[in-house]
């Protein structure tokens, strides 16, 4: 089992919500931003991003809207919803508790 991949899989929604919460964005930009912000740590098969985005949209956490750019290109921008913001807040809280607990166990002297 690839531990890193499993961790990413379990936290994909949280990462995506976080990015979309910062500013409305589209699929390709999300991939670039994830890679950039994580110094290349988060790389996933690009196609698998879209099922995750559509699942979140179905769960009403985000909302996709087509926008036409000045150069005529079309992009589907995702906006976070109120429900998405609440879900993100809860997941960040859970993550903080979890990471604190892990740190308490693995590095007790640093606390």
């Amino acid at each position: 089992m690839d531990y890193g991949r499993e961790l990413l899989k379990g936290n994909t929604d949280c990462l995506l919500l976080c990015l979309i919460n910062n500013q409305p964005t589209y699929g390709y930009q999300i991939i670039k931003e994830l890679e950039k912000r994580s110094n290349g740590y988060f790389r996933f098969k690009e196609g698998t991003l879209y099922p995750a985005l559509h699942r979140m949209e179905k769960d009403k956490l985000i909302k996709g809207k087509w926008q036409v750019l000045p150069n005529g290109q079309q992009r589907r921008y995702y906006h976070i919803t109120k429900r998405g913001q609440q879900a993100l807040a809860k997941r960040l809280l859970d993550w903080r508790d979890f990471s604190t607990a892990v740190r308490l166990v693995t590095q007790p002297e640093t606390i």
Partner: protein
Amino acid sequence: MTHELLTHLEDKTQELKGGGLSEEEAAKISTQAFGPPQLIAQQIYEVHSQGTWQEAFFAALPHLLVALLFASYHWKNLISLSIILAAVTCIVIYGWCHNKPMWFFPWLGYYLLPVIITGSLLIYLPSGWVWLATLAYFPLALFAFAYIMKQTASRDWLYVSLMLAPLPVVFSWSLALGINGVLPGNMLLTRLQPAIPWIVVSFLVLAVATFAFTRVRQRWGKAATLLIPPSVILVSVTLVNRGNIGFWGWLILLFSLLALASPAWLKAKA
């Protein structure tokens, strides 16, 4: 959805071309970075294939109504039948005009039933009129059938099975009870009476299967839920008739099993 994936591929290709790659190389790398198309298609299907609880209930509702019709003995009442037919017609028109949602297909299946029954009743017309009616009615009915099947299959082959699911149930019971013709009211009642609890069970099973079909995400799971009703009906019909359902009864059941299994088979073959 496709448009969204295409814009992503175009962006990636443009970026790679900006980095000095040829059009062909850039397109190849972009496609590879996307991952296995079959996996993506499966994941997207699983996201969009699951209906809500309300949709599942609404999809199962026509079967529940038919079960209720038999359980309450209202199937003999022309007014009840007319109300249900009018409701089915309105819902089918609404669903057809509103992007044909998943819950609409079981309703469409019941809408096809009167078309078939009308066709089978044509043989009771006076001899001279039978040919005339056949010539006028059958091409029209077949055209409507073919058009609806084509439209449904263009959405998903599984929806064809979902739509056709009530038809084998109705035919199996009609053939098994020998009421495929016009019978005097009291004779019809005598034959139907002992089978009514089983008929109700058949439609309830169909309702449960439809409900599960709408909620299940995986394609194989959907195909499996559609195979349950004919199996239960086969047992019910056999129990009621002590195995004596006649050649046509068995043939119809075999056909219904094949028809309902075909989407799963087509999927496995693809």
